[in-house]
């Protein structure tokens, strides 16, 4: 897709609205509303004005809309391939993003090149939208390494598995951005921290809200509320809508339709730009649904009913973009077919490369424990190699 600057954002340069959407809430919105620009039926609302008067809008070119559609289809197709690879025993685990494509593609494409992202372990869609080879996290899930990428090179931190810990890393990094003098201008840097509804109960996440507030950190807290923390429903994490938590920490919070890629893009872009301009943090709650299991080790039929899943299927993040493109005659059957075929090729290529990943040499487990090494570890490495050498030729 075209990677040029898209036209989007808030009409007011002020901080985004504290609250949901305006007085007229979309029909499928939770109580209190959310920002929605593309309805589940594919109707483009053009713009939406929140209760405090901030207007969010997108005005993409045809190619840009088609590009977003391609992103959504591609990340879902790659995710499906990963799920299949796990089921076939080729990955130890997979954390599927199924259902959360719009939240990730919208926010991922809203990032500017200089922005830094701190993911959980599910942000494969954001990773893809950063222009990173989608195979990058597969070493982790296949068990050949623990990730192994350079956060600064890709502007995309290591996947963080302990829930919520990365929000503090993001906040510290954002403090560093300020200390480097990289805020306060339109080409400044901003930081985004991803986490889920479950993470909002973690002390570290709440500490990161405190820190970001008092240090006016140039960052966006992007919470994908997918309604469940493994089996525990949202009601076990909070008594109030999550976006309202921001008020207690002194910065704006806003809820978006997490299945609407346009809302995700517009609101995240506005919040990031506010951050880079020196206006401090924003909490975005992307209201969405995890259509699959928490991970490949989970069985969601034990804690949620089929009709609930079906009701969310009607709000699918990709179907609405397809409907929009078709209605506007921006995309025809050939286009949709080509996107599917191209995504399928990417998935096949991914599969082949995952299967070709070599197992690590066991002795490399001793590498990269300390930047300056350790004589104790050197001895253990030597002993390990000597021990294994005794088996050579013995058939073990």
């Amino acid at each position, binding site marked *: 897709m075209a990677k040029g600057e898209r036209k989007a954002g808030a009409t007011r340069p002020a901080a985004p609205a504290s609250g949901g959407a305006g007085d007229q809430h979309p029909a499928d919105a939770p109580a209190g509303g959310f920002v929605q620009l593309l309805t589940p039926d594919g109707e483009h609302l053009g713009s939406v004005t929140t209760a405090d008067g901030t207007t969010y809008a997108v005005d993409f070119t045809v190619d840009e809309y088609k590009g977003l559609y391609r992103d959504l289809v591609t990340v879902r197709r790659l995710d499906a391939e990963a799920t299949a690879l796990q089921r076939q025993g080729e990955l130890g685990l997979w954390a599927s993003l199924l259902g959360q494509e719009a939240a990730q593609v919208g926010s991922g494409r809203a990032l500017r090149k200089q922005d830094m992202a*701190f993911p959980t372990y599910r942000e494969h869609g954001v990773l893809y939208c950063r222009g990173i080879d989608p195979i990058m996290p597969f070493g982790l899930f296949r068990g050949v*390494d*623990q*990730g*192994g*990428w*350079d*956060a*600064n*090179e890709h502007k995309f*931190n*290591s996947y*963080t598995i*302990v829930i919520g*810990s990365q*929000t*503090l*890393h*993001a*906040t*510290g*990094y*954002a*403090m*560093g*951005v300020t*200390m*480097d003098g990289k805020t306060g201008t339109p080409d400044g840097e901003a930081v985004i921290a991803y986490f889920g509804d479950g993470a909002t109960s973690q*002390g*570290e996440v709440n*500490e*990161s809200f*405190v*820190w970001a507030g*008092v240090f006016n950190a140039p960052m966006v807290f992007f919470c994908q509320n997918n309604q469940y923390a493994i089996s525990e429903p949202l009601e076990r994490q909070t008594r109030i809508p999550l976006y309202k938590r921001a008020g207690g920490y002194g910065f704006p919070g806003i809820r978006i339709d997490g299945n609407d890629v346009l809302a995700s893009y517009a609101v995240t872009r506005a919040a990031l730009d506010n951050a880079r301009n020196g206006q401090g943090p924003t909490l975005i709650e992307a209201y969405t649904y995890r259509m699959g299991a928490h991970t490949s080790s989970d069985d969601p039929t034990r804690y949620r009913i089929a009709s609930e899943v079906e009701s969310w299927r009607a709000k699918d993040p990709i179907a609405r973009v397809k409907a929009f493109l078709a209605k506007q005659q921006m995309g025809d059957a050939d286009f949709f077919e080509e996107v599917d075929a191209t995504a399928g090729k990417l998935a096949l290529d991914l599969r082949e490369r995952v299967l070709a990943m070599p197992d690590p040499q066991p002795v490399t487990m001793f*590498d*990269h*424990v*300390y*930047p*300056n090494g*350790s*004589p*104790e*570890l050197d001895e253990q490495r030597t002993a390990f190699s000597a021990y294994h050498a005794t088996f050579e030729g013995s058939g073990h």
Partner: protein
Amino acid sequence: MADKITLGKALNHGLRRSLENDPKVVIMGEDVGKLGGVFRITDGLQKDFGEDRVIDTPLAEAGIVGTAVGLAIRGYRPVCEIQFDGFVFPAYNQIVAQVAKMFYRSKGKVRVPMVIRIPYGGGIGAVEHHSESPEAYFSHTPGLKVVSCSNPADAYTMIQQAIASDDPIVFFEPKRRYWEKGDVELDAPLADAYPLHNARVARAGSDATLLAYGPMVRVAMDAAAVAAEDGRQLEVIDLRTLSPVDYPVIFESVRRTGRAVVIHEAPGNLGLGSELAARISEECFYSLEAPVLRVTGYDIPYPAARSEEEYLPDLDRVLDAVDRSFGW
């Protein structure tokens, strides 16, 4: 020319020099700015280096260490102060699960050079949580290096070396020795300083080896002085580095003396002394005249202050252990 200054002041000078030498060094913690820290270790630093270099943080230890990780990823070299030993546990997750693993997780592509300073140990008549010795928890964690200084000269150089190192380092400061004075060469080049991860023979001897670190080095030295009056020449090794331990120096000494006594304030069960005893047994078995003995805190929560003198290893308990070693 050497200055006679306290261990606390030596740390202050060391931190100041690190701030001067590297603009990426930042100090962060509770009360480290205006107040200069509850022990005044950072006294005057915020005034001279500004609020961006010496950062008064919100009161949350996980936040201090977690944001320091982010700053380190960004290219800074944070020095975190944990106000007291017993307050480190809210940050334990960040230290053990993130600080220790970032380099490994990234296959060496992401470094988090940071120092976590922890005033530790008892003997100051404090309330609960202010007298603990949690060094074994961190020494047990691969990816962390752990050091402890015992005197002003080491405090001055070791804090600078720790800050300059790309390894994440937990730096244990013997809080009850903060006010003890010693000679410190403030103008000596850091490059000439004794290496950070080397143990040092603090007193040479031939009859038995005392192994100590941090606040217990003083106790070991006093015990060696008294033993000498009885004709026993005790060698005292100041470990200085707890992870990794500098074993060659220890093994050489124990092979020569045939006896070893480990001293630390922390509870004995699975403490550093347990590992030292195991390693010495493995490496020096045929040289040993007696089992490696340990003089440690008891396996109880740190007791109320009015009992701490009975809890902490002291001169008599060390000499008693030496007697037992010779009586084997």
